[in-house]
């Protein structure tokens, strides 16, 4: 199956404005009607990946993360840590039954791994 890039996530200090901007430019639709109030982005195309917007603290930088699909989140963390990654958000269950974790790669870039239910 491999480990495809499943999703992009924009971390924004102004998530509503970010949603409005990308919706206006690309015609994306944003739906936050879910337990976490997560702004799920639908790009309107079956090509490429879908994404989401998560709020960032006011003092933080705005950035984008990629989430890769894995079969075993904990196993992937162990492997990544052995190669120099740093765990930022430990394995966390999602309301839909999936699981995710966020790490920094050895260069300090943030990325996520997720197990889709």
């Amino acid at each position, binding site marked *: 199956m491999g480990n495809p890039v499943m999703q992009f996530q924009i971390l924004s200090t102004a*998530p509503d404005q970010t949603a409005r901007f990308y919706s206006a430019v690309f015609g994306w639709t944003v739906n*936050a009607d879910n*337990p*976490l*109030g*997560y702004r799920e982005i639908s790009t309107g195309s079956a090509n490429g990946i879908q994404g989401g917007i*998560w*709020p*960032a*603290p006011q*003092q*933080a930088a705005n950035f984008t993360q990629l989430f890769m699909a894995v079969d075993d989140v904990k196993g992937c963390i162990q492997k990544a840590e052995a190669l120099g990654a740093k765990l*930022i*958000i*430990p394995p*966390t*269950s*999602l*309301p839909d*039954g999936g699981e995710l974790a966020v790490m920094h790669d050895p260069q*300090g870039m943030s990325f996520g791994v997720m197990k889709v239910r």
Partner: protein
Amino acid sequence: MMSASCRTDWGMALPRYGSLRDCHRLNSASSIQRVMPGSHFHESLRREFDARLKRNPRYSLRAFAEFLATDHSTLSQIFRGKRRIPVSQLRRWGKKLAMTPEEVAIYVAEQHVPDQSVASRQEQLRQWTVEAIAIATDNTHWQIVRLAGSRGFRPDSRWIAGKIGVTVDQVNVALSRLLRLRLLEIGPAGKWKSSLCVEEKEFHKRALVRVRELAAEDGIELRRLTGKSSN
């Protein structure tokens, strides 16, 4: 910003962000008055000497020092990375090396850009300061943990926001921080669990200790206040 954060008084029994040694080192580094070994001007100087040596194998370091109107041992130390070049020298030497004023200005400007390792450490200090301040000043964190341990809790940011009286985004920013700081877990079956279901004051105290512990893993030293203001 950096000196302000280092002066911050977190109050009784709370950690202070960064040590005085860190503040001194970072503030010194951010106001560099000498050319760092390995800077582009340093490399230019070396290249010029090598080019002269190539043209004339008998060309000496002493001759190059005389050309620059400096002492040859000083120049030797600079080439060996044992000594930095004062910015005032950079301007004079740049002129002697026939650099344009624009080139010299760029090399001078480079001296005011913090070294990458210093900038990286400053950013880490800033990030940990932000985490600590948020824990100390925003009680949304404690409210989430309190609710998570209460009967009838719903793992729903919208429900939590309604209970606390903040926005969903404020809940989610605090939720992310609680997860980052390992103050809350969302386990299988979506169960939210915290080992810090304690009174608010105790929560802040222990949460700030956690910030200090995690900062230490990044090589950022936090210290408890000492003297009259500590308990």
